[in-house]
């Protein structure tokens, strides 16, 4: 047991991916497929008076044009559990009426024999609008901000502890500044794509999604098709970063068009359609006030965020979500407000809340350290939160001080100039910066099926998906350990809603959620096998005690006498069985925004699938989950070189030391954290989606204009892990790793730039034009 888990094995799907053998949503070879291209609005707000499809409809290869005039009716999905799928724009079901709420909104779908024909015809569709004056500009409309009732899944958005205003009066040292962040795009390499196939009343949708289960539930509800008649497949996903966590119009448009034109229909969005219709990180303005005594101890923390959302749904970027928890302070005041603009709806993007929230809070801490004349790292140590002070709980495991210590050593923190703007290496100003990283550890109910076959190989089925993070690999390692088989004898199948319900790939929860049921199912199958062997006079293990038997190297054997035992396959063949199966479900959730699990025995506790398969619901060893606060932490350290004349920034080295529980696979873990850190670097220095200040439509239309870091921007990156298992989250000890790498990075870079130049840029991204002023 536990021989493979944690080992840095290569990705099991690596070869398939680099050889093009991995099939993504738009690539499934479906016979007779037709191509859908959407026509998008060229106004920002108004009504569609007329869509003239006459000329376009007659063009070669065109099968038809779907508009609000002729498309099928959709129903709004009931329920709001994000685990069951979240349709992103509740007041804008695709093509259901003539209203336009933002530029680039889908308003028609041209379906043709080829992609080129569909695209050409789409350009020929003539739309007449009754244009209305849109609400344009975030800053301009800040006065219209309102307080939302709650955030995603009911998350609290207004949090108070003590009396921050009163405490601020008594604070000896204060900072008060506003930090702004632009709109960011997830820019997953694979644009959103859906391929819908109807076979009679059975619908299959190949979709680029972070939740096959969510899309299935939504398709069923919105199209009015029974759940058992809907199947969603996403074997490989080319990145999501949150953009494929909510479900957007694309799978519905494909399914609607496929039914209407009686052909399989594929819709793959263009990059600019992804920008306008498939989510983004909202713009924020965050006012942070910190008050401390002379020793640096925080007395008050105020974090007021304004972000923006659309007119068709409400999404709150909870920038202040970590603020009540991150440092020890008796008084905290966190608020969130929203402005509505005529833009597409924002959605979670890698570390929603914490990414932009740690930028502002951690720059504010740097500013406070300077006013106090205390080393910024020392200020973090002075204010270290030993407990979760808002929820008044112990942390399940927290090794943040060790992260600081290791990170400081790796970057050479002692070289950090005490006074900013004075130290040079050659012509460049040198600066060091640091920040705290944090992300909660989530876990939700998941299930898996394990099968041992007579030919000696084993299979796991789980209805989660691998969005590029390494889930296939980690699941294989966990299962192989539990089966006692080598990795190449275990096949993990994910990304199919026919499989037992697995977690959505969001909130850094997949490993913690699906690891336990995968392990439990595999152990369950082995246990059945051992039970058969013990009862079988033909087995060398006949009448042995169950607890004396273990598995390994494809055998079951006595733990004290490895020679006494037999291959797994021998048990099956002797009994003439072609396979042995086991199901498992772990029914836990630590995500505070999710409803508590239904009590065992209540009708809600069993899903449809469970009742059918009579699946055992397993609880973990530790059931007292509510006693602890589950958070990962880390420390980000950065060294930058700034050209003082040209304002160009070269990030020279970055170090991230992460405390994320047990590392399941060092290779994929380092990869995840590095990717997150680069995500943060892009956020700090270049990423920026612009809207036209006059008409509010997107100006930044593609990857020529939306800059993400290229290799030449990426410095040496050092990633370290504390690698201390968190046994309160699950027996596997892993807390999830997908998002924490982003957090703190933008602040660490901004702080390093300040240390180098003495210029405090409080508006991301930090570009040369801002530094030469």
């Amino acid at each position, binding site marked *: 047991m536990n021989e493979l888990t944690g080992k840095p094995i290569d990705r099991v799907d690596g070869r398939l991916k680099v050889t093009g053998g991995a099939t993504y949503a738009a690539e499934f070879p479906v016979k007779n497929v037709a191509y859908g291209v959407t026509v998008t609005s060229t106004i920002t707000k108004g009504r569609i008076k007329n869509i003239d499809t006459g000329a376009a409809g007659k063009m070669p290869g065109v099968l038809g044009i779907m508009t609000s005039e002729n498309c099928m009716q959709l129903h709004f999905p009931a329920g709001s559990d994000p685990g069951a799928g979240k349709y992103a724009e509740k007041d804008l079901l695709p093509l259901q009426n003539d209203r336009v709420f933002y530029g680039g909104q889908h308003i028609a779908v041209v379906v043709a024999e080829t992609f080129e024909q569909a695209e050409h015809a789409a350009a020929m569709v003539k739309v007449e609008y009754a244009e209305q004056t849109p609400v344009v500009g975030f800053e301009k409309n800040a006065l219209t901000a309102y307080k939302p009732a709650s955030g995603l899944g009911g998350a609290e958005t207004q949090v108070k502890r003590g009396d921050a205003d009163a405490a601020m009066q008594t604070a000896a040292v204060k900072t008060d500044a506003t930090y702004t962040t632009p709109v960011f795009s997830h820019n997953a390499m694979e644009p959103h794509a859906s391929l819908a196939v109807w076979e009679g009343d059975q619908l299959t949708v190949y979709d680029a999604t972070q939740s096959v289960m969510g899309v299935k539930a939504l398709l069923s509800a919105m199209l009015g098709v029974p759940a058992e008649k809907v199947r969603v497949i996403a074997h490989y996903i080319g990145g999501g970063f949150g953009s494929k966590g909510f479900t957007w119009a694309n799978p519905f448009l494909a399914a609607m068009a496929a039914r209407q034109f009686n052909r399989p229909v594929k819709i793959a969005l263009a990059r600019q359609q992804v920008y306008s219709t498939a989510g983004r990180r909202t713009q924020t303005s965050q006012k942070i006030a910190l008050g401390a005594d002379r020793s640096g101890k925080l007395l008050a923390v105020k974090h007021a965020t304004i972000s923006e959302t659309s007119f068709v749904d409400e999404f709150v970027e909870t920038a202040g979500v970590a603020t009540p928890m991150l440092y020890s302070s008796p008084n905290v005041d966190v608020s969130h407000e929203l402005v509505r603009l005529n833009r597409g709806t924002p959605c979670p993007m890698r570390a929603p809340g914490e990414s932009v929230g740690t930028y502002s809070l951690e720059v504010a801490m740097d500013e406070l350290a300077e006013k106090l004349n205390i080393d910024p790292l020392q200020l973090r140590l002075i204010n270290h939160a030993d407990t979760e002070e808002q929820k008044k709980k112990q942390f399940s495991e927290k090794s943040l001080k060790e992260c600081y210590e290791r990170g400081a050593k790796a970057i050479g923190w002692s070289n950090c100039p005490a006074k900013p703007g004075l130290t040079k290496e050659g012509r460049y100003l040198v600066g060091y910066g640091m920040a705290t990283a944090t992300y909660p550890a989530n876990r939700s109910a998941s299930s898996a099926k394990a099968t041992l076959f007579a030919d000696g190989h084993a299979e796991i089925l789980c209805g989660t998906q691998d969005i590029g993070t390494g889930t296939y690999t980690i699941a294989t390692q966990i299962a192989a350990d539990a089966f006692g088989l080598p990795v190449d004898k275990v096949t993990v199948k994910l990304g199919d809603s026919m499989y037992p319900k697995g977690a959505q790939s969001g909130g850094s929860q997949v490993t913690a959620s699906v690891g336990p049921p995968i392990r439990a199912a595999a152990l369950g199958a082995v246990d059945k096998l051992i039970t058969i062997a013990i009862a079988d006079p033909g087995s060398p293990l006949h009448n042995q005690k169950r607890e004396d038997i273990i598995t390994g190297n494809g055998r079951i054997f006595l733990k004290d006498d490895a020679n006494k035992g037999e291959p797994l396959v021998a048990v099956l063949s002797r009994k003439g069985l072609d396979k042995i199966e086991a199901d498992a479900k772990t029914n836990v959730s630590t995500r505070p925004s999710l409803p508590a699990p239904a009590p065992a025995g209540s009708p809600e506790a069993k899903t449809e699938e469970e009742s059918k398969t009579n699946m055992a619901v397993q609880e973990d060893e530790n059931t007292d989950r509510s006693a602890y606060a589950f958070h990962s932490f880390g420390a980000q350290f950065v060294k930058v070189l700034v050209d003082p004349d*040209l304002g160009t920034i070269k990030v020279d080295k970055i170090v991230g030391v992460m405390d994320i529980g047990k590392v399941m696979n060092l290779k994929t873990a380092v990869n995840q954290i590095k990717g997150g850190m680069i995500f943060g670097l892009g956020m700090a220095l270049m990423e920026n989606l612009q809207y036209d200040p006059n008409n509010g439509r997107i100006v930044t239309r593609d990857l020529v204009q939306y800059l993400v870091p*290229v290799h030449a921007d990426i410095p040496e990156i050092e990633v370290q892990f504390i690698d201390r298992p968190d046994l309160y989250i699950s027996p596997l000890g892993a807390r999830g790793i997908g998002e924490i790498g982003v957090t703190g990075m933008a602040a660490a870079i901004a702080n390093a730039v300040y240390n180098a130049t003495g210029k405090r840029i409080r508006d991301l991204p930090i570009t040369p034009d801002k530094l030469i002023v």
Partner: protein
Amino acid sequence: MQPFKYIKVPDTPAAIRAAGINQAKFIAGGTNVLDLMKLDIEKPRQLVDINQLSLYKIEELQNGGIRVGALVKNSDLAYNPAIKKNYPLLSEAILSGASPQLRNMATTGGNLMQRTRCPYFYSTDFACNKRVPGSGCAAISGYNRMNAVLGTSDHCIATHPSDMCVAMAALGAVIHVQGAKGTRAIPFADFHLLPGQTPHLEHNLKADELITHVELPPLAYAARSHYLKVRDRASYEFALTSAAVALDIQNGIIKAARVALGGVGTKPWRSIAAEQVLTGLPPNTASYQKAADTAMLDAKPNKDNAYKIELAKRTLVRALTTTGEIS
């Protein structure tokens, strides 16, 4: 994309014959024209593939100049030993543009013809006089951080995107073209047009004319030259500002200079005024600053791009400083 015919032509006369008809466009590397066709900004009825033409040579001329065939790939030009030795600014300019993959496809002639990356030009739901003459310019009152500050008009502030062209402008290259009526030699400064009231007219090439080669005139002191590009990321990004400079320094005095700027002009921006300021001055920061102030004298900022004036000056001062230090 509008459907189109695609033909390959074997030689220059055939290319010229094909060019005048059917709203034809030449295609060589295709790194820009295909993007524009996909967006229905360029709508040729016929693409004339000229890759079979014998225009691939880089020839050193008797007079010390170099003749570059129009189909010479950007990579081949940048890495050519004679170019690196005689015109380092050109090699550096090309290598600072695009990515290795693009430079391996993009050609010398194509680079001369590439069109602006102004986002409003690419977004068909915005007004753009370059794309639809008379429709207006959304960039002037829009988001214009990347737009030009020199050579602009009330009708267009689109930046010329090329790095290669900035170096060629500094060198005073000559563009040789061939058409139905014979050959012409166009001085670099006359090749690209200012937007004025007709931003859709970008160059002075007739429909049936094909660029055959570019002649780089002899300029001994261009061996002491440099191209500096400032941008938002380290590679694969257009210039915020750039400068191509060459200095002829003798006995501690600048005898002659070449100065061109990129990222700031509606065309590759040579500043003869800055060159004249430098001439006769000692190669020091004060001289360079004076030249920079002169080069940007006529700059007209918009809402988001005023920084370009200061940044361009600093870029030019740095480029001149670096060049002055070349031994």
